[in-house]
Every structure is written in structure tokens, then in C-alpha cells.
């Protein structure tokens, strides 16, 4: 761990090799989903990397690492819960609306969104989809794309701005 703090990549490999299996097992007991556990392991190591200066040399590594892994799991669960509530709210809205939504209009709207999305640069489109559709936090997006959190925010913001401009400029 001390070598990793010194900035040595081979030391990171060593830390990963020593801990990834145990972290995965721990995360699997929390989420009971092998694929999700694999994703969470990657997120955990990104978070370990970002907060590596909080590790106190000389202290045991495992309580520090497992606390971070648990936090990553809880954040994921919170995001998933928020996403589910949003989907439930949308479904309830569709059920309780006074005027049933016209299916043809819905298809047109979907097509328009798809068309507008295609005009957004790929990097920004990816950030927009990950944040606004998949409900991922900017920290998660940054970890997955290997960019900084601010860069993820900027990409999503610019993507949405571009979409709004495109939709404003469309004929209807």
C-alpha cells in the first residue's frame, strides 16, 4: 500500500490481486448479483484510488477497504432506489393522467428525442445517457469513463444544452 501511495502502478496491481477477490465476495453477499458485484468491485477500486490519501500507513488495510466497498454498495443502492422511484412516479403519472396519452404522439416524442440525441457529440451523449437515463452519479460516470467528476458534469451539461438547442430549432 505504501508503494501504491508512492505512485507505483505495479503496487496497485498487487493491491488489486490481493483484495479484489475478497471485495467481490463481500459485495456479492451484500447485493446477491454476480454481475453487479463485478461492477461494484471496479467502482470500489476507483474510489479507493481517489481516497487513497486517507489510508494511514501502518494501520490494517482491510477495514479501510471494506468500509469503502460498503459505501460504494450503499451509494449504488441509493441510486437504484432513486431510479426505481422515478420510474414508479412516471408509471403512476401515466396511470392517473386525465387524458390518456396518445400512443402515436409518444412514438413521435421518442423518435424526436432519439434524433436529437444523435446530433449530440458521442462523448456528451454517453454522459447524458448515463446520468439522465441510467441514473448514475457523476462520480460513477467519471469512474467508468476514466475522467474527472467535473469533466463528467460538463459533458452531461453540454449534451443537454445541445439537445435543448436542437429541439428549440426543430420545425414543430
Amino acid at each position: 500500500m505504501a508503494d501504491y501511495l508512492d505512485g507505483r502502478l505495479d503496487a496497485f496491481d498487487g493491491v488489486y490481486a490481493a483484495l479484489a477477490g475478497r471485495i467481490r465476495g463481500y459485495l456479492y453477499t451484500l447485493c446477491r448479483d454476480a454481475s453487479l458485484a463485478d461492477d461494484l468491485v471496479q467502482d470500489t477500486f476507483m474510489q479507493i484510488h481517489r481516497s487513497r490519501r486517507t489510508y494511514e500507513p501502518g494501520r490494517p488495510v482491510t477495514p479501510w477497504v471494506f468500509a469503502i466497498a460498503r459505501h460504494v454498495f450503499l451509494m449504488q443502492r441509493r441510486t437504484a432506489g432513486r431510479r426505481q422511484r422515478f420510474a414508479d412516479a412516471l408509471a403512476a403519472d401515466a396511470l392517473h393522467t386525465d387524458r390518456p396519452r396518445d400512443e402515436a404522439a409518444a412514438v413521435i416524442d421518442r423518435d424526436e428525442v432519439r434524433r436529437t440525441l444523435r446530433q449530440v457529440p458521442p462523448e456528451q451523449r454517453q454522459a447524458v445517457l448515463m446520468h439522465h437515463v441510467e441514473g448514475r452519479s457523476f462520480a460513477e460516470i467519471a469512474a467508468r469513463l476514466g475522467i474527472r467528476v467535473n469533466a463528467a458534469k460538463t459533458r452531461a451539461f453540454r449534451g443537454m444544452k445541445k439537445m435543448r438547442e436542437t429541439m428549440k430549432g426543430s420545425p414543430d
Partner: protein
Amino acid sequence: MPAPKPLRDAIERDLKSTRPLRRPSTRALALAPVAAAILVGVPLLHAFRGDMDVLGFVRAWGFSIAQTVLGLVVIALALRESIPGRSLAAGTVATTVVSGLALPMVLVVMTSSRFDIGPGPGLALVDGAACFKTSALAAVPAIIVAAILAARAFPLRPGIAGGLYGLGAGLMADAGLRLYCDYSVPSHVLFAHGGAVAASMVAGACVAIVVARGQG
């Protein structure tokens, strides 16, 4: 098990030598100048209580310095709470909060021999609000510095870490306030002095939660 390539690449891009944070107790000492400024600044900006001579050095300055040190200890606990894997036990947090909130009253009991010195008729609210405002404002600089120190770590329970450093900052402010306010009526001490400490605690928790959300 080798690290997946995208993860390894992301780590490699950002990898540089990093100096670990110092121990929480050492980092809490960064607040010592702020604590000293609050301790001396509150009575200097307003006035020293009238019975300083009667109290003597130990019961006046001694107790306030001890309270300031306790405030620093609580902030050190908050900084420890901000380190992953070093979270405080629920019992420790509860004991710290209850003791911290009770401390202003305990000090008045240890300092005063009578508990009927208070605001004049009709002034309870005005004087109470003045003490509350003075103490709450005095805690602000300590909350800001502590929030910066905690945010440099990685608080997994920001509400608890913030509540603790808010409590520590509130105790520091109250240490200065008790050198200015000589009221010993329990209602004033509980609501104005204790209330300001509680308000600082809540403010600290809110600040920490907002900072944590801002950090993503």
C-alpha cells in the same frame, strides 16, 4: 486476479505520489489558532463578565481553556470519523453529543454558587437571542476550517462527521461566551448557550452533507 484494462488505464492516468493525511488528532491542531482567537475574541469584542475577579483564574480562564480543548478533541473525533474504516461506535457518538450539549450547563453549575443571575424583567428573550447569536456566529470560522479538513478526507457518514465538528466548534464558541456572559439562570444557559451549541452541531451536519453532495 489482474485488474481489468479500463480500470488499470484509468488508475495509470491519474497515478502520482500521494502524501497520506496526518493523524486526525494532529490535523485537529490546525484549529488551535482559531480556537484561541474565538476564546479571547468573544470577550474582547464585547466585554469580560463582571465577576472575573471573584471567579479567579481557574474557574474563569481555566474552565474555558478546558472547554476549548474538549472542543478540539470533539473535532479530532469528527476528523477520525471522516476516515474510512475508522468510524466511531454509535455509543461513542451518543456519549459525545450528550456530554457536549450538557457541558455549558455543567460548567455553570461548577462556576456559580447561585442560579438566579439572569436577564431583567422582559429581557429574557432579547438577552437570550444576543447570547445565542454571539455564540453561533463565533462558531462559524471553526466550522468552516473543520469542514475543509474533513472534506480533504472521505467521510462516509458526513452528517455524523459534520455534526461532531459543529459540536466541537460550538463548544469553542461557548468557551468564549462564558467569559462574557455571567447569567446563571438555567433557562438562559440551556436555551441561549446550549441552544447555540446545538445549532452549531446542526449547522455542521448540514454543511458536511452539502459538501459531500457537491463532491459527488
